[in-house]
């Protein structure tokens, strides 16, 4: 047996990692959001001024709302494309299933930047998409509309985050015993009825997890908007980044970051509650 003091020490050692790596940075960040800038110096006075500035500026609030809307769209597109893919993979068997799964999840191991550049080269003026559309005759000449706007951000994020949507959905499908699907058929349900009453509800936790991944990842992403959004594609992530990187107003940036963190946490809590209601 391990004695109590030993256990406390053990616990502290184990807890030290998460504490140092997660709690301390977030705490520092939170503290920063209550400071203020004066003559390019951070003044350590505690106040809610940064938050007040955010909530009283329609531009900032509007950017946040538009970003939330964008993230919701990314999530929806991710689910609409990701669920059928996960379902399709699940219905295969043996080697084909493994290969398909690997194929769709492999992008997770690729560099994020590489993926964005790939998307850029697909959507760009001389890109793959334009070449095809011109070759097929749908367009008479390459078009600029695919890149450097809000839709380009939406499309790129949806594609890049797709593996994060597919994987949890697939895993929750994988956990459904085949005998449940057979039992449903046995009781007279065709595949559509079985899907609606058995497969969809039982894969809901994974679907919610996939949706959360897409939503939260899109929420915090400032690189994709920067790279494919051009001057029009402005998101909240980009605003925060500019506070740190361009305006050098770290306290205000930290306050905006805290707002973003709160929104992300709220999404996670709501998703968690929804998932919990599904599973008894």
């Amino acid at each position: 047996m391990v004695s109590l003091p030993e256990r406390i020490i053990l616990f502290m050692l184990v807890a030290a990692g998460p504490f140092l790596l997660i709690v301390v940075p977030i705490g520092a960040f939170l503290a920063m959001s209550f400071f203020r800038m004066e003559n390019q110096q951070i003044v350590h006075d505690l106040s809610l001024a940064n938050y007040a500035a955010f909530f009283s500026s329609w531009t900032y609030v509007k950017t946040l709302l538009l970003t939330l809307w964008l993230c919701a769209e990314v999530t929806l597109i991710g689910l609409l494309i990701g669920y059928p893919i996960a379902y399709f993979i699940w219905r295969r068997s043996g080697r084909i299933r493994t290969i398909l799964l690997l194929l769709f999840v492999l992008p997770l191991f690729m560099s994020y930047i590489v993926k964005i550049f790939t998307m850029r080269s697909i959507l760009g003026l001389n890109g793959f998409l334009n070449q095809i559309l011109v070759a097929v005759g749908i367009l008479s000449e390459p078009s600029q509309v695919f890149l450097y706007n809000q839709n380009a951000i939406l499309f790129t994020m949806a594609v890049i985050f797709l593996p994060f949507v597919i994987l949890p959905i697939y895993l929750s499908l994988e956990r459904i015993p085949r005998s449940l699907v057979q039992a449903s058929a046995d009781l007279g349900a065709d595949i559509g009825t079985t899907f609606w009453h058995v497969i969809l509800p039982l894969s809901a936790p994974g679907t919610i997890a996939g949706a959360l991944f897409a939503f939260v990842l899109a929420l915090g992403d400032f690189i994709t908007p920067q790279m494919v959004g051009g001057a029009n594609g402005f998101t909240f992530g980009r605003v925060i980044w500019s506070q740190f990187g361009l305006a050098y107003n770290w306290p205000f940036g930290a306050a905006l970051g805290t707002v973003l963190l709160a929104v992300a946490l709220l999404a996670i809590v709501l998703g968690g509650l929804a998932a919990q209601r599904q599973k008894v």
Partner: protein
Amino acid sequence: MGLSLDAVSKSYGAQQVLAPTTLQVADGEFMTILGPSGSGKTTILRLVGGFTRPTSGRIGFGDADITGMPAHQRPFNTVFQDYALFPHMTVAANIGYGLMVRRQTKPAIAAKVGQTAEIVGLGGLLDRFPSQLSGGQKQRVALARAIVCEPKLILLDEPLAALDAELRRQMQFFLKSLQRQIATTFLFVTHDQEEAITMSDRIVVMSAGRIEQVGTPKDIYYAPRTQFVAGFFGDNNLIPGHVTGNGMVTTALGTMPIPAETDRRERDVMLAIRPEKVLLGAAGSGSHQVSCRIDDVTFIGAITQLRLRPAAAPDQVLTVKLTSDRTRLGLESGTVVSASLAPGDIALVEVS
């Protein structure tokens, strides 16, 4: 009429797991498929249920050929070995699933579900989820879910395997009386010979993907036709012998007459004698007497089991079961007794 398998076989790739099998199950019959693990019991059930397609052959039900009919259109319901209850649905929703799928009205479903729950003894648990039920209760939900749609045939894949001995006996009794009550054909899978004998109208004994014997429990118990069946039913005494053509069979225990109405061709056979059919002491007329020494005596409660070594063949062991009150006659190990085998109690088993 009823269910018929006509030369139905199943292969996975090059491996044949079910040899061409022909079988009839009459309407209202309690038919049990019995066999060791991997003998193809579940395979037959899955073929009948429509969860796999036969590699060859035809499956018929009534006048219809249902070989290619998808599972959800077959008028059969299955009680799965792992119950396969829907974890996200209450007991009521589980039981009513088949009715809901058939688009019955909510009040009709509720009434039928309540009624069926009463039959299987689940009243009061309708709002629980499967995770809140005991094994025996889950079992009953699976059963209720299968009978609620009034199928023509119920398929049960080792439904009692996971229950403890006492509950198992209760459920055996219950299943049998339920089957009589709803007058539905049961196709029941088990690897427990006692269960098969107590519950079935007829038993199909399977081994290695083929049928060894089909018959009533008594047929199978007292007149096993193959060595496998004779061996599978527990403690049969198996004695090699040779039929000599004049109605006699020679064995290491001596020469004795073969049972009436058996094939008299000269050949090697195996004699199967049930332990409770070996008599000790005074013999009836026409019985074959074997002098034996008692090797050991085991008291098993109502029954006492003796192991005898015939003087003429010390390598052969004869197992005998007596009601325990009869062993007060001073049967102890070491005693020499006379065992008698009546021709009518001997089954000749063909050796292949």
